[in-house]
């Protein structure tokens, strides 16, 4: 069984907080007064970024839902789901969002009284779970609700992971003994303790899981004392929590290597480094503020003569991505922070040159030598060629 206390140091008593809210709602109803539920507004316009903090935090804006004919369904569903989640906390049961969707459907099926609450698809139950977390300002994981494991495949000859199991025992995984098989961090990496055999020089997070695997197969982790993580696109909560742990527990420099395009900078790198606007409440434990952007950098394109694709305003997808990049420069507090000026400069460069360059393009530098990408990456780390 999971122990939510291990996620973060928190003095929040979730059952008590929930009971208080429900009690007040009931009291309002008894007096024919409209109950109001308030939740933190989790969106970019309520995001604050301070480079000293390192991640996006919520502002003061709140979303208030007052009971009326339009909101009665949402309120009934919220209280119904809250009961399921409180029961999970009480019994220590954990579930994914998909499972909770089916559990809710099961309750509806077993009691005809609940039939109007039925969820047509998972999006509807997910938004209720999110609303409950924003209302209680708690992590979804603290409500014993975990996402699927995705991404974060990790390779290292030095890293040893110790998991504290709920029965009091410990499990130790020595990544050095796994060969080229990756270690998959769980969706709740906070249960791990990390140690290393000898010194680790750096942690490298690669956007493409396939490229991370190629580098390992070619001997990258044998030749360098490092930890390599495949992000598999936009980093999931598990990946963000896992890189956060590596950064905080091992105090090693972390580098991110991915495509040179607006999407990677905005959606992948920014989410890894500072969290996302949708999860403002949890960014503290689900971001790695010290991660550096190793590349691909605009200067690499020139230096290594890397192949670029044109980004065409006439192409609908490209035009949309350019528009999003412009909006980001105007509205995203992360890119507006003066400490991240070099990152916003890259976005400006991309907008000006209207090109994008993929991370795999370094394989074209010396196609005969499979270790060239490794050489370039190490060279960039040594020379401080990163942001």
């Amino acid at each position, binding site marked *: 069984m999971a122990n939510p206390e291990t996620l973060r140091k928190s003095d929040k008593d979730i059952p008590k907080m929930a009971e208080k809210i429900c009690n007040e709602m009931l009291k309002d*109803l*008894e007096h024919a007064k409209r109950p109001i539920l308030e939740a933190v507004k989790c969106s970019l316009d309520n995001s604050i970024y301070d480079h000293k903090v390192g991640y996006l935090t919520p502002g003061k804006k709140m979303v208030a839902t007052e009971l*009326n004919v339009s909101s009665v369904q949402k309120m*009934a569903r919220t209280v119904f789901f809250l009961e399921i989640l*409180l029961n999970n906390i009480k019994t220590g049961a954990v579930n994914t969002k998909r499972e909770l969707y089916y559990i809710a459907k099961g309750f509806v099926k077993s009691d005809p009284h609940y039939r109007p609450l039925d969820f047509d698809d998972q999006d509807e139950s997910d938004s209720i779970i999110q609303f409950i977390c924003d209302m209680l300002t708690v992590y979804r994981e603290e409500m014993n609700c975990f996402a699927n494991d995705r991404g974060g495949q990790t390779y290292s000859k030095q890293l040893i992971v110790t998991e504290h199991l709920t029965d009091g025992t410990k499990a130790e995984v020595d990544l050095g003994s796994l060969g080229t098989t990756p270690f998959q961090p769980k969706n709740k990496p906070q249960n791990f303790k990390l140690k290393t055999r000898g010194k680790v020089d750096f942690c490298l997070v690669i956007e493409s899981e396939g490229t991370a695997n190629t580098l390992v197969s070619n001997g990258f982790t044998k030749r360098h004392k490092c930890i390599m993580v495949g992000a598999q696109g936009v980093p999931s909560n598990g990946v963000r929590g896992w890189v956060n742990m590596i950064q905080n527990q091992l105090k090693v420099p972390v580098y991110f290597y991915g495509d040179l395009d607006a999407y*990677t900078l905005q959606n992948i790198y920014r989410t890894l480094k500072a969290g996302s606007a949708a999860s403002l409440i949890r960014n503290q434990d689900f971001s790695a503020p010290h991660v550096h952007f190793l590349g691909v950098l605009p200067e690499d394109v020139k230096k290594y003569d890397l192949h670029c694709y044109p980004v065409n305003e006439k192409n609908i997808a490209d035009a*949309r991505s350019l528009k999003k990049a412009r909006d980001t420069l105007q509205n995203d507090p992360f890119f507006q922070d003066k400490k991240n000026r070099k990152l916003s400069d890259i976005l400006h460069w991309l907008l000006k040159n209207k090109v994008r360059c993929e991370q795999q393009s370094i394989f074209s530098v010396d196609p005969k030598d499979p270790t060239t990408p490794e050489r370039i990456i190490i060279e960039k780390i040594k020379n401080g060629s990163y942001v």
Partner: protein
Amino acid sequence: MAKSTQKITQHSTAEYFAKNLQQVGFSSPVKAVLTTLKEAVDNSLDACEEAEILPELEIIVKRAGNGASKNSELVEIIVDDNGPGIEGDDLPKVFGEYLSSSKFGRGRCSRGQQGIGISAATTWAQLTNAAGVKVTSKTSGMRKAVRCQIDVDIKANKGLAKSKETIEWDRPHGTRVEFKIDGRVQLNGDGGIITYLEGTTLVNPHLTLRYKLLDQPEVEVKRVTDTVPEIPPPTLPHPHTLKLGEFMTHAHLYGKVSLDNFLRKGFSRVSDEAIKGFIGQKMPKAFLKESINSFSEEQFKTVFQAIQGTELVNPSTRSVMTIGEESLSKSIQRLGQIDFFSVVARKPRICDYKPVAVEVAIARFVNKVNLSEENEPVQLLRFANRVPLQFDKAACAITNAVESVNWRSYGLAQSKDSLPMGPYVFAVSVVSPFIKFKNASKETIDASEDLVEEIRRALMQAGQKLSRHIKREFRAADLERKLQHIEKFGPILVQCLGKIVSAPPARLKRAEEGLAKLLGRDGRDAEKELAEAETQLKKVKERQKGGNSGDGGESAAEVSDDNVEADEQLEMAELRASASDEDSSSGARKKK
């Protein structure tokens, strides 16, 4: 060059068509039946309109045994009209001679234009059943009717009257044609006879039609207007619509006249100012006094080029006739019980230098057989000069225009560049004295940019009216849903709260009472809004009923007096729709 041993022979027009009947609509047994019926009905309606008679048509289609060809039936098609009738001597010309027509090149909005269709039907009957068409006809000047069989003398392109007799006929005038042909009867679907007859009914509000198809019960559709459509007088051709060859042929028709006279009398929109313009475009002034009979090809070319290089006033739109929104509104209600329709008749416009009028009717029927379902494309009825077009839908200007409109912004489901979905009938009529068809069988209107745009604008105007209705419906449904929500979710909310706080039953009862008070207030408000919306809907329906004296559903027929104003509104709406599309379709790129 080696001398060919083969003889060069000449063939008659009839021989050409007899060998190429597929080009004029006889490419399959199903199409043969429909085309024959269509040609007979077109001729009847045109004749009635010419003579200013309110048409009454009786149609019978029945099976008469097996056909001579494999997998075909012998089908008997009878069309009986109250038209002016045809003199006995003219019958062979009308039914048995190709390109013998009273309408050829006259620049009028008649259904028939070239004089091919009915002769082709006679030829098909002759080729498949060894007998042409049996015709009975009587004019008001005849004491008795003439009855005979007309065959086509294919070698000579001449009609032959056989077994001619005079008979008593209990009517002052009219014509009855009886075809027995090889074919196959298809009643429903795009190429079906019922679809054709319903379409013909829709665009001919002054028509009374009785029909009996196979074993089905007889159907009678009565006229909804007693006014015979006034056919506008033909106009002279506009010089910009001709090619050089056509220009020269046109000149030869005028014989020995000066160029100046020819240009002024032979064309529309050629004024003194225009002639000055031609001279300005390097047409020698001396040409004006010369007889066009003596013009060389080179001279014609010089004149033609000067004309093409001169800006001229657009041709007149007076030669175009329209059905009119009022008649179309009444007519559409003859097709079934309607719960909503919207009609738009645009003023005639110039497209590709030709006057064109576009009219659109969109209707949703209640319990109509064969109507599309929610997730199926709408039923599209296309008309050219008030004749239904039933084949080769994809390439038609009308289909292109319907597909180019963003129907999502008017509340209909639609995949990109496709017909919208839903249980609607879209009827689009294009009327012009010079419709450009893609083929001789007149199944598809050529999709020129100008024409598609004009049809598109009419559709968008109809779409806006439709959208207003859909939004009203949605609002009513939304309020209904909210009322249901109160009853459904209120008790559950109290029960779940009670469980979490372990509240005693007395507390729950108090909360339920408080909730009832709160939501009751909302409920009463919602009911009030719903009642208001329904009253408004009723008012609109009453207003339309009064206006149309029909008993159909709600109409959104509004006379669009000013195309320009409507076009400006459409452009704004389009901009808004494309902006909202952009917003709704924006999403993050999925990677790796």
